[in-house]
């Protein structure tokens, strides 16, 4: 079963370009990051590991507190741990700036 989760966060900063990082492989995830048009941050997660919505929210909320970027993010997850997700988010942002 796949779980699809959606989140929204307030954002103020713009990014220059889109970025693609990661891979849908065991313990890893793929992130597609694009500049958002509406000045908010929105995230859609598709994951093969169900029941971790609160953990996803915690990881994403912390990322957007530190980096309030107006982006649209799509994550395809294959069991990445929160630490791996946090690193992938930072990597994607670095590539987009």
């Amino acid at each position, binding site marked *: 079963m796949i779980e699809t989760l959606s989140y929204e966060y307030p954002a103020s900063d713009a990014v220059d370009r889109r970025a693609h990082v990661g891979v*849908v492989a065991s313990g890893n995830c*793929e992130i597609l990051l694009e500049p958002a048009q509406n000045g908010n941050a929105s995230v859609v997660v598709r994951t093969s590991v169900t029941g971790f919505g609160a953990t996803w929210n915690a990881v994403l909320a912390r990322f957007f507190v530190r980096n309030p970027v107006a982006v649209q993010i799509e994550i*395809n997850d294959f069991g990445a741990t929160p630490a791996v997700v946090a690193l992938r988010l930072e990597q994607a942002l670095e590539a987009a700036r």
Partner: protein
Amino acid sequence: MSALLLAESFAERGARERARALLDAQSFRELIGPFERLASPYLAAQGVVPQSDDGCVVARGTIGGKRACVVATDGRFLGGSVGEIGGAKIAGALELARRDAERGTPMRTVLALDTGGIRLQEANLGILAVTEICDAIVALRMLQPVVAVIAGRVGVYGGLSLSTALCSQIIVSEGARVGLNGPDVVETESGIEEMDSSDRPLIWRVTGGRMRFEQGFATALVADDVEAIRAAVQHAFEAPRELGPLEPQAFPDPRLDLDTFLRAMGIES
């Protein structure tokens, strides 16, 4: 030791980075990239998370200053398996290369495959894709070399091993494997006496890159080093071998027990 430290691994790269490494610096331009979102429409219904490029990267650029296209499958996503989308990307790239060659604007085409074969979740579509890929390789190799680079962690198995065998030049690394049925399949179908799929040295002695090169199933054996592989690819285009079916050197009866077989091949077991 210093050579080992200085080597830049090809196998440790993902598919996109492998394509980038094979193309001349700064020439990489991806076609149908991840933001086109041409992912497999069949996986989610079967409980498998899809990947936005379907595990297959097609990139244009130059190799040795000449127009080129590299197709790379990503062995980390579902074993690099090929389904409808990935298969169409590979076949499409080969068919475009043939059209270009016929128009007198040839495009060097490299298949950097790292795949367990057809994706089981898309079985029939994968089989169709492999037939299209085989067709396209046969048509293209009448006009120019078709170069396969098998230098990933998976190697190439299943239907795509058939496609690989049709290529006019096959570059393998020692760490890669080339076979039709994977070790698990052989053990399941024929018993552990036939193949113990947990015996990694045995697997490499039977299907490893060095063995395949010695048998004549590959045209070049390279180290897991980006520069060495780039040089082998350029050489494949600049000094193409006589086009024709690969002729495996006369080799001993495979029904011999493995040690006798390897000795007859002149390989220390």
